[in-house]
């Protein structure tokens, strides 16, 4: 097992290097200069000043040298300096990660809480109106742009009904002082119930907008996986023994059916993390996605590089975890069959 993990991690290294190389090359070839954008349109700036900034950030070096320096620094865990923010890239990314992770996890939670029961209901009443309705709804979920759903939700709940906040992570002037960047966690740790509730209210709309696709996916996976399990021997045996239907489904079938669902969801967390930049933009959510979009816009190469590397590493790790869970859980599943 350990050697498998090590081998996989070693295999991931060339992939990550490939990603850094591609992003480096793209940004290098793209016309445009972060220093120009940084200095803006206006004011007195001399060419001498532009050249100096380029020199200080090593942007005047040949491609190979820049990439080499980047790799050497990366070996030390240093992602370089952002040209626009003039601060270490690693620091900037770390500041934004909590907001994005918090939103993603809440979105995933909502997706599971709604998707799994809906999937179970659809599977149990296969071909019923309920099943068809759920199927159609889940298709709707994957067919709409998440940011548009966000706009519609803001319009309904924040503007017309005025029951939820429009944007942001928390109300202002509340006296609540987050420490870790995970606001919900902070509020709970500080025992500040009002703040926790407030943070939750801010999380709700963006999380729902983000979760639509995953919710749909969860529902459909649960349904098909459960249908497959219900057809299997041990479930039939349980039924034949006279175990009540509810228990059969929930205790025996569902437990096994959920394993592939959870695996796929874990894998998709990566995609969710990478795809949330638009939702973050709509809700003014200060996460990594918005930072990256801005960085690409301003040609802040070092920041783009660093962020893409973080995304890619997350993807690789989640993939590995998903594969591991397959490898790890499969024998138990086959073992469970006999016991059921």
């Amino acid at each position, binding site marked *: 097992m350990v050697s498998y993990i090590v081998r996989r991690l070693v295999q991931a290294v060339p992939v990550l290097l490939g990603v850094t190389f591609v992003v480096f090359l793209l940004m290098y070839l*793209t*016309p*445009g*200069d*972060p220093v*120009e*954008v*940084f*200095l*803006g*349109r*206006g*004011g*007195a*700036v*001399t*060419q001498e*000043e532009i050249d*100096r*900034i380029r020199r*200080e950030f090593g942007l005047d070096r040949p491609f190979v040298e820049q990439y080499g320096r980047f790799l050497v620094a990366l070996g030390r865990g240093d992602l370089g*300096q952002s040209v*626009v*923010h*003039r*601060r270490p890239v690693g620091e900037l990314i770390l*500041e*934004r990660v909590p*907001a994005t992770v918090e939103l993603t996890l809440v979105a995933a939670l909502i997706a599971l809480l709604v998707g799994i029961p809906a999937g179970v209901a659809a599977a149990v009443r296969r071909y019923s109106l309920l099943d068809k309705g759920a199927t159609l709804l889940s298709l709707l979920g994957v067919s709409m742009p998440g940011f548009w759903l966000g706009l519609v939700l*803001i319009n309904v709940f*924040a*503007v017309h009904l*005025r*029951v939820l*906040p*429009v*944007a*942001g*992570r928390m*109300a*202002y*002037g*509340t*006296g609540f*002082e*987050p420490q870790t960047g995970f606001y919900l966690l902070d509020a709970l740790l500080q025992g500040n119930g*009002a*703040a926790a*509730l*407030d943070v939750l*209210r801010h999380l*709700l709309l963006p999380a729902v907008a983000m979760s639509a696709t995953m919710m749909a996916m969860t529902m459909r996976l649960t349904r098909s996986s459960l249908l497959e399990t219900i057809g299997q021997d041990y479930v039939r045996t349980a039924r034949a023994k006279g175990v009540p239907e509810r228990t059969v489904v929930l205790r025996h079938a569902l437990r096994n059916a959920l394993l592939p669902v959870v695996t796929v969801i874990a894998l998709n967390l990566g995609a969710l993390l990478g795809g949330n930049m638009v939702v973050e*933009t*709509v809700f*003014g959510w*200060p*996460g990594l996605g*918005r930072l990256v979009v801005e960085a690409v*816009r301003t*040609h802040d190469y070092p920041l783009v590089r660093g962020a893409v590397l973080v995304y890619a590493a997350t993807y690789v790790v989640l993939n590995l975890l998903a594969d591991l869970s397959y490898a790890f859980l499969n024998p138990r599943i086959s073992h469970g069959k006999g016991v059921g």
Partner: protein
Amino acid sequence: MKSTQAQVLALALVALLSPVAFPQGAKTLVVGIDSDALTLDPGNFRHRETETILRNMYDGLVTRTPGMEVVPELAVSWERVSDTEWVFYLRDGVTWHDGTPFTAEDVVFTVERTVKEGRIGGLTSPRKGLLDPVTDAVALDRLTVKLITSVPYPALLAFLPHTLIVPKHYVEAVGDAYFAENPLGTGPFRFVRWDKGTQIVMERYDGYYGGSPAIPPVGPAPVDRVIFRVLPETSTRIAALRAGVIHIATRIPVDLIPEIEADPALRVLSVRGTRSTFLEMNVRRPPFADVRVRQALNYAVDVELVIEYVLAGLATPIPSLMSPDSPFYLDIPPYGYDPVRARELLAEAGYSGGFSVTLDCPDHFKDVALVIAEMLRDVGIEARVQVWEWSLLLPRIRAGERDLWLSDWGNATLDPMDIMIPKLKTGERGNYSGYSNPTYDELVEFAERHAPDPEARLRAYHQAQELAHREAPMVFLWVAQEAYGVSRRVVGWVPSPDSRINLHRADLQ
């Protein structure tokens, strides 16, 4: 059992959907701003919103009135003792937010940190350019400091408000990295916390010396607490303003002004900005190498109509580069709309059949571009609009690959040297159109380097404006107003043309 569950669920839902009530004691003024600060180090940025925020925690040697007049702030007075030396007499009794007295050493430290290379964490301050001919500062005594420039620098006072003074003792003790996130100034508010991407909180500094005597009232700020809340989406900012969650909202699009004015609790305050807008042409190659074609375009665009329709009337046409608010403004009539004259000029230049061109613009100009393209079509120029990300368009303009584009240039000092030189002097950074005219170059050079005499400087810049007007390397469009949505509870605050939001004198009723 079932019903209890349902009740719990319903209760949870109600709790979730009701606003959370927090105790409101202190008087808090909240500004909705469209971008977070990039850093809180006054020496390490080139970013308008960052300066807007920092202005409330830091003071400069001098500042500007809302009428853009340079007045004393941390300095009481100054004199120019030679062509290249200025002496500033500092205010006594000013303290940093930690109680340490402010002295000439702090000014020397700030100037050196700004103009000497590699002084901020190994990097050079990007604000060096705003102070550039200044090479050194010397403390003559505790409250007197001398600034030395390498060449005569008549525009020094116009630029000086943009250099905020930082505390020597503190920066040296905590280091640049810590300082960038934990600022300490002499301004009306002291730093409380920065939740990145979310908010910056400040509280009144009770030991404040009171600010510039030239801008009454002098004294500590009336509000207890100021929050800059980051709201990048326009619609969100307006919604927050209407909900009363924020009291000042920046960057209101002109189409939405009526909506805000319709709300009895709100009003719109606008001020003419300092950004000149142009339709620039690539003069290096045909068709715009011909001055007649360039003049034709100036006649073909109905600037007044564009302003009326797209900008809701909130802009002032300009005949040349400078804003009417600048003391250097040359008051001559703009070209004016004359499609017949435009067609004549085009015919004279050999384009009686018109020509096709792509009109490039960054996203925020796309509506303007569409309307102007229509106007060009009326005189026979087939203009196709292409919208770009500015960072992608600029290098292509630079390379001389583009022909016609909309752009603007900020002139926060209202001094001609940071617009007339970069925009049109041969080979300068902002000279996107590739314009090159020895007479023009001589005029602006004369004004800057050889004219300590203010009158001669003014005359030279007037001549340069006149020349630019005639040569028309761009269609001179306008200086637009900037609109702020403001709660009627806010008193004692007006927007400033340089867009710095100073809340020192603002109060809430």
